[in-house]
Each structure stands twice: as C-alpha cells, then as structure tokens.
C-alpha cells in the first residue's frame, strides 16, 4: 500500500550534495513529489525535505539509501510521528468584475492573503499543508488560474521530536 511520506534530512553543505540526492531518486526510480533544500542556522549544514509516495518497503529503502550517502548526516521520516507540514503557494488569478469579490471570499476562507492587485488580477499567498493548498486550487474555478507556484513541503516534528545533531 502506497502512502505519502515526508522525509527530512540534514546534510553537509557541500557542492554536489543536492545532486547526490536527486541522482539517487532517479537512478533507483523512486517517486519524488517535491524536494526543498536551504541552509540551516549552522552554515555548514543544509536541511532538505523530500515528499515521496511509496510502499513501506520502498520508503524503508529510500531512508536507508539516503543515510548511506556520505554527505547525509541524519535522516528522519516525519510521517512516522506527529509533525507539522507547511508549504507556501502563490496563485495568480484572473479577477475582473463580480469574480473579484468571489475570489477574495474564497481566499479568506483559506486564510490566504492577496499580496498583489491589478485591474485584472489578484496574486494570492497561501500557506498550509499540501492538502490544504490542493483544496484551495480545487475551490476556485480552474479557468481563473493564470499561474501557480509552490515551494514544496517543509516539515518539522512536534514538541521534543527534532532532527538535529
């Protein structure tokens, strides 16, 4: 049975470290839904969040293979425990006439904010779990959407559950 997993990892901030992870996923034909990476408070380390879909066996192999990469310091499958997931999305929509009010109301319901306004468009910023962003996209008529850009998921364990050295 396939499930969606959020895997977080810390790795050395070395040139090429990202391509090792990306190469691993393509070489072993693992599914990759999103991948984000940025430095941490410690400049020598980057933190990466990977969202992948796979059976328990495949996800187990993925975490083992990630751990095996020499640049990878620590790996944690966030979905194994309680965690928080957030993703940022910017959506530019066609907004003219009566649609403007309708779109604004939908954005409010999802606690999105309109961060850019022109005569014919709105750009809405929305943060939340991937499923919430999906729900928002479903809630507005796809005919309105001009552009969508998502950052990919970031995640963090709840409470004392942490990925640190």
């Amino acid at each position, binding site marked *: 049975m396939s499930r969606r997993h959020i895997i977080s990892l810390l*790795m050395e901030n070395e040139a*090429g470290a990202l391509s090792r992870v990306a*190469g691993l996923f393509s*070489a072993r034909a693992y599914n990759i839904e999103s991948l984000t990476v940025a430095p941490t408070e410690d400049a020598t380390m980057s933190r990466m969040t990977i969202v992948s879909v796979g059976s328990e066996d495949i996800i*187990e192999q993925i975490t083992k293979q990630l751990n095996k990469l*020499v640049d990878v310091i620590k790996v944690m499958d966030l979905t194994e425990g309680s965690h928080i997931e957030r993703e940022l999305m910017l959506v530019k929509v066609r907004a003219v006439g009566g649609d403007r009010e309708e779109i604004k109301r939908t954005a409010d319901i999802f606690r999105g904010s309109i961060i850019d306004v022109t005569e014919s468009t709105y750009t809405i910023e929305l943060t939340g779990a991937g499923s919430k962003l999906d729900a928002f996209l479903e809630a507005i008529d796809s005919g309105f959407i001009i552009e969508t850009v998502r950052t990919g998921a970031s995640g963090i364990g709840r409470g004392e559950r942490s990925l640190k*050295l």
Partner: protein
Amino acid sequence: MEATGAEIVVRCLAEEGVEFVFGYPGGAVLNIYDEIFKQNKFKHVLVRHEQAAVHAADAYARATGRVGVALVTSGPGVTNAVTGIATAYMDSIPIVVVTGQVPTPAIGLDAFQEVDTVGITRPCVKHNFLVKDVKDLAVTMKKAFIIASTGRPGPVVVDVPKDVTSHITDFVYPDTLEMRSYNPVVKGHGGQMKRAVQMLLEARRPMIYTGGGVVLGDAAEQLAELTHLLGFPVTNTLMGLGGYPATDRQNLGMLGMHGTYEANMAMQHCDVLLAVGARFDDRVIGNPAHFAREQRRIIHIDVDPSSISKRVKVDVPIVGDVKNVLTDMLALLKQAKEKPDAPALNTWWTQIELWRSKNCLKYNRNSPLIKPQYVVEKLWEVTGGDAFVTSDVGQHQMWAAQYYKFDQPRRWINSGGLGTMGVGLPYAMGVQLAFPDAQVACITGESSIQMNIQELSTCKQYRIPVKVVTLNNGYMGMVRQWQEFFYGSRYAESYMESLPDFVKLAESYGHIGMRIDKPEDVEAALKEAFSPALKERMVFMDFQTDPTENVFPMVEGGKGLSEMILAEEL
C-alpha cells in the same frame, strides 16, 4: 612543510603505504607524474588502457584486502576508467582513483579534455570529491582512503584540477579523521544476536548462505568455527567462494543460477536461513515470489542496512561487520545451554545427501573434444588448489567457479555484480604484482580476453608471469547457450569470427604461447606452464574446447531456485 598539490598527492599515497599505482599519464596529471618520477616510495605500473589500470588496482585490493590505487588523466582517461570503477562498485571493492581535471578557471567552459568527472562517476562510486583548493587536498585524500576501506567498501574518486596540483600549501597528513556524516555501524545489536542464536538452535532444516561480505570482512575463520560448531550446511555465492573451504563436507557448493542442485534445494527448503554478507541477488534466489513460497525464517548479517530487506524480507536483521557479529554470536552460542537439534539435523543431512547424490556437476569424460570443465579440474590439480584464479565473464567463469575448489578467501578474483568482460588479464596482473611468488591463473574465453588483450604488453614490461588459460570454444559461449535454450538456436552474432593465432600473438609480445587441441595433452600443458622452468614467464594457453558445451545446472531467469535445468543423464 610547504608542498605543491602534486607533491601532496604523491606523499599522501606514500603515507597510506601504497605499493602500486596503476595509471596512464596525460596533460592534466603531468605535475603528478613529475612527482612520481622523483619518488621511490611506490611503484607506478603503466598499463595500456585506463580500464585496465582500474581493474588491476581493484584486483590488488581483492587479493590483499588493502586499498588499490589508480591514476588517470582528465576527459578520455576518466571515461575509459568508468567501466573499472563501476565494476569495483558493484562488488564493493575498496579503491581510490585519482583523476586529473582541467584547471579550475576552465571548469564548465567545455575545455579541452574536460568531462564532469564527479557527475559521470557519481552513480558508480561510494563517494567522490572535486578538490578546488589545494588546502583541502591532504584531508580529502585521507577521507578517500577511510571511506573506501570502511563499512561497506567501495571505490572513491578524487578529481584534482591541474592548477591545484601546482598550487602550494603547508602539507600535514592527518593520522585520523572524524566525519560526522559517516559512521558505519560495526557492532551487532545484542538483542538481535540473541534472537538469532535462539533461532539457529531451534532450526530443524537450517542453511547458512554466505557471500562476498565474508571475504571482504576477513571473517572466513569465524564462519568456519560457527559452521562446524552448529554442524549446518553452508553455501557460497559466486562472490563468497573461498569464504568457506570448498573441499569441506558441510559445503554444498555455490548456489544460484548456476549453483549446485543440493545448494539450491537446501536454500529453497530450509526452515531457518542465516545470510552472512550476501545480498539476495537476482542471480542467487531466482524469482523472489517463488522463493517466498516456502516458509522460512531469515537472519541477515550485513554491514550495509540497505542490503537488508531489499529483495527479500528478513526476520532478524543484524547490521554490523561480519567478523564482529560472528565473533559475538559464537560467544553466545558457546554460553547457550541448548544444542542444535541433532535428530532433526540428521534427517536434514540425509535429505541433502540424497540431493547431492544427483552429482549435478558430472560431465562427459569420454569426449574426443576437450571439455572445459576438465581443464579447470586439471588446473586445480596441477596448482595444488593453491593458485589465485582470476576470470573473465561467461561460461568459463562459471566453470572456474564450479570446478576450481577454493579453500581460502581472496583467491578467486572475478566480476560478479557488473559481469565485465575484459577484467581477467588486468585482474591477474594486479594479483601477481601483489604476490610475485604465487601461482596466478587467468581463466578466460576467446572473446573476453580480446577486450583487454593489449595488457600482454604491460605483462612484458613488468615481467608479470601470469598464466592465461583460455577456454576457446569459438563462441561467446554464454550468449550462445541462451540463444540455444531460449531463442531457438538462432546464434545471432555470438560466433567469434577471425580469431587471431593466440600463440603467435603471445609470442609477438615476447611471451610463451601454447595451443592445446586434445584432451590427453591438457595436463602436460598445464604442468609445463606451471613448471619451475617457466615460473618467470607469462604463458598463454589456448585450449580448443568443445564449442557446444553448456553450463549446468541452470535456473532460467524468472524461474524458482528449485526449477533447475540439469545436464542430460550421461
């Protein structure tokens, strides 16, 4: 003390106690070669193709257990080396390959002889480095040797741009080094080992399945002690041959696609399986669904967690170095009050002996043609079972594995995971240089040998007296066999036309050539080749073998382990 990058490379190799560097020069590594010229700590061996440099370094590592070293130039030097690197990677062999690179300011500009070495080799190395600053060079070399040789071993590439080799810095070689991101687990988990021992003692139809990890981890002694103590049957993978003595009664021989009937049957029908440094390869267990049909509990010892439960789910995973784990399990076993179930074992052995009595490796001994199996058997006799044997890839490789009885680890040197034709001769060179007094035989085919035949020249230059045993069936026999069985005997492009006269070819390189056509001449030829008179000489034996001989038993791809094709009743 100040040194250039090139001096640093050379001094790091000396610090590591490197004996041989196998290499080939070119523009990007000329500074390094100039430093090699000035030193006398290690010997450089000039091969005739970079692929052979890496294979020879790889074989040196397989035979000695130490890290092998190769040096190649940028661009085509690197691309030629890739097959060698991938071969070492698939079999987990510790080597360090130093590659030249274009100067740092030229990187990315499609410079002359530039390739993205780190990118090209990434999927077939344990790790690789591009050294952009001479200050990082010594530490990187140290890391390369540590990473290559610890945990699950593997090749490491160190890519050094030409300008870095001329830059100067203070040279200090670190004795040790910590890497927060690299800490292989070496000690087994106590609880898991207890469970494993309990399970072994409860077994009624046990089987010990051992692989390359026993050889790589130098654990043959511990394996033998455990196996004798338990009285269980044992089998080796192709990579594990010699990890347990082949001539010992408890050894059922190799398992897998061309494994023995008794080993495959015992593997399929056991109730407790102890897997030691073996990775449940597709050539070993056949169809995993068929394998899973029988109920059995599996204990798996491996230093690499990703080898465990990859193709076959296991019940007791034990991550750790095989020598440590077997030592700890032996201690637990000796403390245990219970003993293995003797009556159950008796019944199991009776069954196994019945399987063994099929005598699955029998072949026609009355043929007027030379049978390849006979050549290997005779080689075993003539060398007293004590030679280092390298092989190429094909039928001859399987016959070497089946009929040369390896009683010691690190004696059988072959490409199992990648199955690279052309390794045989460079492998033999690497081994012979490491052990100048040993008998080294390269069992090969007329097709494989042609893939690195140019190395006869290297053998000449360095007086490397390897003995090449060519089982010349005139075909890419392994391909021909599959075409006979699965493609209606349509032999598409598997006949080796226009073969050279190997005797003359060997002689033209200054070696001794022999052509053997009749079975009754086989033994005499081998005896002569391995006689004291020819100890210093490279001998190329061209045995004209039966072109239609096939390798048996055989498990067809996708079939279950117990569904073997056996040789026709003779």
